[in-house]
């Protein structure tokens, strides 16, 4: 989908991207990295908003050199900052955006209602954007990026400031939309769980270099060597039952953490629960989280 070879971007003496190479497969890609790590520079170059100082970059099979206007038709952009006018209705704004990108009035109207339908916007679409809630504003921003039916959409912090329900709806909408239209996604975010929910592949950028490119399911499926157990009832008895089996349980304040030796550890936990007359709320091998992977790479 995006291929960069030895891309360098300098701002004065500062190297925002330093010999950056990546080959991103098609699909939904999450871009992570600390502020000022080169993340947004990379994205802007890929969108054709900036040109690289040196190196080569290919987006959707097209080399980005002079024909960057051509590529923009294939790319949609949902910026992080607020970019919607308060004094227009959602429908008016989107039709206008459609016409700006070269559609006829009829075409733009049809497309607007199609997208807003997918976004599950009801009568609100005829109301002024100024009256919208945060979640609805974000939806209009998303629709604006999708109006010209791009092959690839870049989402910059799409869930920032949204409350949990609005956030979940936004992520579900992104997932649903991309399924319907097969649009490819480039998602930049600070919230790692957004990446877990939406993306297939994650890349981490730091110090102008690619630090990691990995399949998301592989990361969060990786099991650790601990079993997390939540117990109700006489917990002390449970712990001493385990001790008899030479197993130490550590209380991290919320759950007991028990080292995993082999599959028989599970049986021993069950046995200890029964002997100590406890309730067993939860028992599972802890898995690696996106957070720990990220922290490891960044630090």
């Amino acid at each position: 989908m995006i291929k960069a070879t030895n891309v360098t971007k300098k701002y004065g003496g500062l190297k925002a991207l330093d010999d950056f190479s990546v080959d991103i497969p098609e699909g939904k890609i999450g871009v992570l990295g600390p502020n000022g790590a080169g993340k947004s520079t990379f994205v802007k170059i890929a969108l054709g908003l900036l040109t690289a100082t040196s190196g080569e970059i290919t987006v959707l099979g097209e080399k980005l050199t002079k024909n960057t206007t051509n590529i923009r038709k294939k790319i949609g952009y949902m910026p992080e900052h607020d970019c919607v006018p308060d004094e227009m209705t959602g429908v008016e704004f989107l039709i206008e955006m459609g016409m700006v990108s070269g559609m006829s009035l009829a075409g733009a109207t049809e497309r607007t209602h199609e997208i807003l339908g997918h976004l599950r916007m009801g009568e609100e679409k005829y109301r002024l954007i100024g009256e919208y809630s945060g979640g609805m504003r974000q939806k209009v921003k998303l629709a604006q990026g999708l109006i010209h039916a791009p092959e690839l959409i870049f989402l910059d912090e799409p869930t920032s400031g949204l409350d949990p329900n609005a956030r979940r709806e936004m992520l579900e909408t992104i997932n649903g939309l991309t399924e319907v239209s097969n649009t490819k996604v480039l998602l930049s975010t600070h919230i790692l769980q957004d990446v877990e929910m939406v993306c297939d592949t994650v890349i981490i950028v730091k110090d102008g270099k690619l630090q990691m490119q990995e399949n998301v399911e592989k990361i969060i499926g990786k099991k650790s060597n601990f079993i997390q157990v939540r117990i109700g009832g006489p917990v002390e008895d449970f712990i001493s039952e385990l001790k008899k089996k030479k197993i130490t349980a550590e209380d991290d304040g919320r759950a007991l953490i028990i080292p995993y030796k082999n599959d028989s550890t599970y049986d021993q936990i069950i046995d200890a629960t029964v002997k100590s007359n406890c309730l067993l709320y939860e028992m599972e091998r802890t898995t690696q989280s996106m957070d720990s992977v990220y922290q490891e790479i960044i630090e």
Partner: protein
Amino acid sequence: MSIRLEQVTKNYGNVQGISNISLEIESGITGILGPNGAGKSTTMKIILGLSRPSRGIVRVDGNDPFTDWKLKRKFGFVPEYDCFYEHMSGLDYVAYFLRMHDVDKEEAEKIARKALSELGLDEAMERKINTYSRGMRQKTKVARATVFDPDILIMDEPFQGADPTTRGILMKKMAEWAEKGKTILISSHILHDVQSMTDNIMLINNGKMLAYGDRHEIRKLMDNIPRPISIVPLKKGNLRNLAKRMLDEKWTKSTTIDEDNNELTVETDQSEEVYMELPRILRNEKISVQRIYSEDDSLDSLYEKLVEGAQWK
């Protein structure tokens, strides 16, 4: 350190802030959750004495925070919005508020420098705040609120706009402070963050408190909503046997088998019974399992049930 709200209602003109909230907050971390405009910030402002309840009583350490200005030495407040003297450097800003806490000049600068550098602002602290990124601003706010070692920390969306590294640093700090016995009240839209910090939550919607306490306990009280409990046996062959065995029990409402994930889900409205009996059954039937969990135990799920369900009440 005790915070107590008794039937507190707060209206701003005809706009509802919070309605009839009673609670007692203890030391450790408490997460305040709810949609935008639910009344989270209002609750915090009432506790901080920035607002006075329209009805009801607030007491912090037995005193009224709105009138007792000396009480405020106990508070560290991180507001949701920006609140800076933009022309100051981060260091000056934190030191300024230390001076307001009656700390001498040299001492103030020393403590401020230490607090900012602990949060990773070594290079930035001498620069003016109006050049700061959102993450740096967030850290500066936290440094300002915590530098004088308050007993009560009230943080409104402290992770907003912070990158994962910053979030990691802040969470670690909060865990340390909670360990020291401080009372920390924190609101966040990222339920995952709250879940990884604390089990103690307060859920609020439309100004009403929907639930308060340990999230597992809260879920237990909601036994009218059947709870799915999932079991993953070690051997796939045991899946059907186990399902059959479960159906013998009166507390099983239904079972679902997910062959692909090798998972059996039992729906029940007597979950405590299941948690007690399940280990015995497994042991007697000699079925080894590698995972027992409930989808419903996540904060996401609890939030969804309470906040969405509440609209129909």
